[in-house]
């Protein structure tokens, strides 16, 4: 078995791992780093439950080889922090956007990426943007509402901050 050494930053901490060349990013994070917040729903890149951020982009950790992430900056659900993440988690709770919770980490990471883009979207556009993540429990209505609301609040917060900054000037 070919072993490789992979160096990457995960949730802000530097890691060096020895692993088989065939190991996926998902297995490395779950089995070697104990980050079990990402879930394996299909291992074919369809369901999105394994979504993590790699260098600022949402990626399917099940289809990504760990070795391909040499030098990368990885963020998993355990390291998802900040005002947008807080607003998103809050909106998920209030809108009933989760039931069993298995898809939720991937939903939050995909949703977070969308919220951070600050692009105003209507309900249908949010649905399209979130269609890469499968949820079997909720029927998506709550998820789409929650992501849409967090997006609006993110845009509003930024506008308020800009306004305050302009006033101070």
């Amino acid at each position, binding site marked *: 078995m070919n072993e490789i050494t992979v160096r990457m930053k995960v949730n802000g901490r530097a890691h060096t791992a020895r692993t088989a060349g065939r190991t996926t990013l998902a297995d490395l994070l779950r089995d070697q780093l104990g980050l079990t917040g990402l879930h394996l729903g299909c291992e074919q890149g369809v369901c999105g439950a394994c979504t993590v951020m790699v260098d600022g982009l949402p990626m399917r950790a099940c289809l990504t080889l760990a070795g391909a992430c040499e030098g990368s900056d990885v963020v998993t659900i355990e390291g998802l922090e900040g005002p947008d993440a807080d607003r998103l988690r809050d909106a998920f709770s209030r809108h009933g956007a989760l039931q069993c919770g298995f898809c939720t980490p991937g939903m939050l990471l995909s949703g977070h990426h969308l919220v951070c883009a600050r692009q105003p979207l209507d309900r249908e556009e949010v649905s399209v943007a979130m269609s890469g993540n499968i949820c079997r429990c909720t029927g*998506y209505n709550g998820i789409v509402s929650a992501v849409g609301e967090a997006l609006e609040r993110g845009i509003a917060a930024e506008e308020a901050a800009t306004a305050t900054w302009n006033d101070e000037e």
Partner: protein
Amino acid sequence: MAGRGYFVADIQLPGLREVAFVRSQVAHGRIRGISVPQTDREAVWTAARLGPFAEPLTATSTLEGFRAAALPNLAEDKVRYVGEPVALAIAGTRAEAEDVAARVGVDLEPLPAVVDFAAALAPDAPKVHDDWPDNIFATTAGEVGEVDAAAREADVTVTREYTLHRQAVVPLETRGVIAHYNRSTGELVVWSSTQTPHMIRDMIALQLGMEARSVRVIATDMGGGFGAKCSVYPEEITLAAIATQVDHPVRWVEDRSEAQVASTQARDHRHRITAYAAADGTLLGVEADILVNSGAYSVHPWTATMDATMASAMIPGPYRLHNYRFRTRSLASNKTPSGPYRGVARPAAAFSIERTIDELAHELGMEPYEVRIKNMVRSEEMPYVSAANKVYDSGDYPEAVRRATALIEHDAWRKRQRALPASARRRIGIGYGSFTEQTAHGCLEWAARGLAVTIGTEGARLAMDATGSFTLSVGIKTHGQGSETTLAQVVSEVFDVDLDHVTVSHGDTAMTPRGDGTFASRTMVMAGGATHGAALALAEKVKRIGAVLLDEPVDNTVLRDHAVVGKKDSVTYARLAKEFLFTPDHVPGVEAGLEVTHYYRPEVQTGAFTYATQVAVVEVDLDTGAVKLLDYAAVEDCGTVVNPRIVDGQIIGGIAQGIGNALLEEIVHDADGQPKSTSFLDYLLPGATEVPHIKIEHMATPSPHTAFGVKGAGEGGAIPPPAAIANAVRDALREYGTQVNETPMTPERVWTALQLSATTAEASNQATREATR
């Protein structure tokens, strides 16, 4: 939401080793031999090696003529479906276990496979089970009233054949099992992603020949179940048995391609329905011939006849039907065994009766919703005993239809529909689906279906601790339904405490009183009823303790805001519990113990009937056959609503699955029984863009038969979407007379049906022209 879920795949145990199964690659074949390389002998288990430690489970039935066949733990002589476990390999990691499994050679003599209904029934069909005379698990039949007389009286008769093709259940978390035999305590601990931990514990003990006291089953967090995780599986028994023979824990986590063939599947119904009606739309009689392809084996405890018998009981639907005749045949085939899936048989039953109601309406030139209202059981007739001898407990069925027409704005859609030009290539249709949802059935109901295990009780233990907070332990297993919240609400209601003072413990057989599990929309009624009973008994005791401490008569006390409140003074639960548990001598005359266990059993055995009417508005593309949902509404009555957000979540989630059933999901098999939908690339699930914003209205008529008047709400959402959407597509294509009688209604199926009907319409137009010439 912080990544702290704890699923079977997340559990870490010292020495844990991983399992990979070797599964049959053919649908039907005789095993000539299994070869294992010398170096892998220790790591590989076959039927021969496992046999001494675990008996296969036979899911039999009390139905007359039922043919039983044991469900092998590992296949021994024959394999009977693609995915059947043949052997397993154990290694340090799953990847290594798969490497070992790949080196196991299975020498199979392929046999002709029995795949579809016709093949299973053919006189010269190959036998799935060699010692049976045919491929039928069981046949049932019955008649209520006089169907032949109704037929003679009828002004209109329609006969249709409906098929709901086979589906996978697809909880997003696949199944997973860990088994660990603790040699110091002699305890076998099995973690399983299961809806029914107590049942799994009993059956593991029985199949392994152990006493159940030595077996503990724990279900931790679960990523959904929907019925796929409430049967006893060979993998659970096999891992448990192996754990007793090796010196380390073993784990198996199903991968998605395994789940698509090895987890129980559902639907695969074909119903031939004939309905008789009077000219005014009165439904006079119904005949149903029901075929269910149940797959290769009968699974415990549901048996292979569950779907067929339930379909026959639910086809009368919410209607005043007095003349009803049915026959069911449950067929064995070389497909994955069937088990429960959200709605169990009712999506098919609703499809049959609801499509047929629409066909009658079309024949009579009536609005389909009017035919529904005309024939439905009325509120003044409640409780009403249906043609299938079910006690419909309460509600106003026609009112749900009326409200649904308002909620969807029926007349406005009809106007838009009529305004479309004849040349429009996209047509609009409106379709309704009404149903009754049997929830929380009792023992006699399961017995009537022939189950050997007549599920029907549920336990709850409520304890107040020394700090005055509550722990509720229940035998059900919540896995996304929010029962931690709704059951805590029951305690909160009785004791007037905030929810965050109540812990709900579930899923661990060592920590909870016996219960049957979470399925059949039963948790809120059954575990809720048990919790209510325990809470009332504990409340009575708490008041007695309070009365002693306050020196007031018990009758003067009430429970309010975390305290026993008397006429003169009050004592908080925190103080009361400390007094009673630390210094019982301060509370003379009250017997020891601050906990109560209560078992609930429903008084009316056919359960509490939730009902609803759902409406779909679709747009059908005549050129592609694609169906798009433009609007969707549901008016439902699940009795007293304990938690509106949770009920809405169940309804919307159910409707989403129903949309999958209606439009997308199908396990396709080729003629050799090879499944062709074993990944999410070819088994399509609804995504965010396939589920419209769903409008919901509640009616909330309490059931007279349950605590608080609650009825189950878990499955209803998923029951009528195939019927409502098919009726809408039929309505959209009304001018072509296109029959939409199969699910899923893929673009290909709709387009093909449209071409066939257009050809027929053209031919009949031609004939008319020639006749009039």
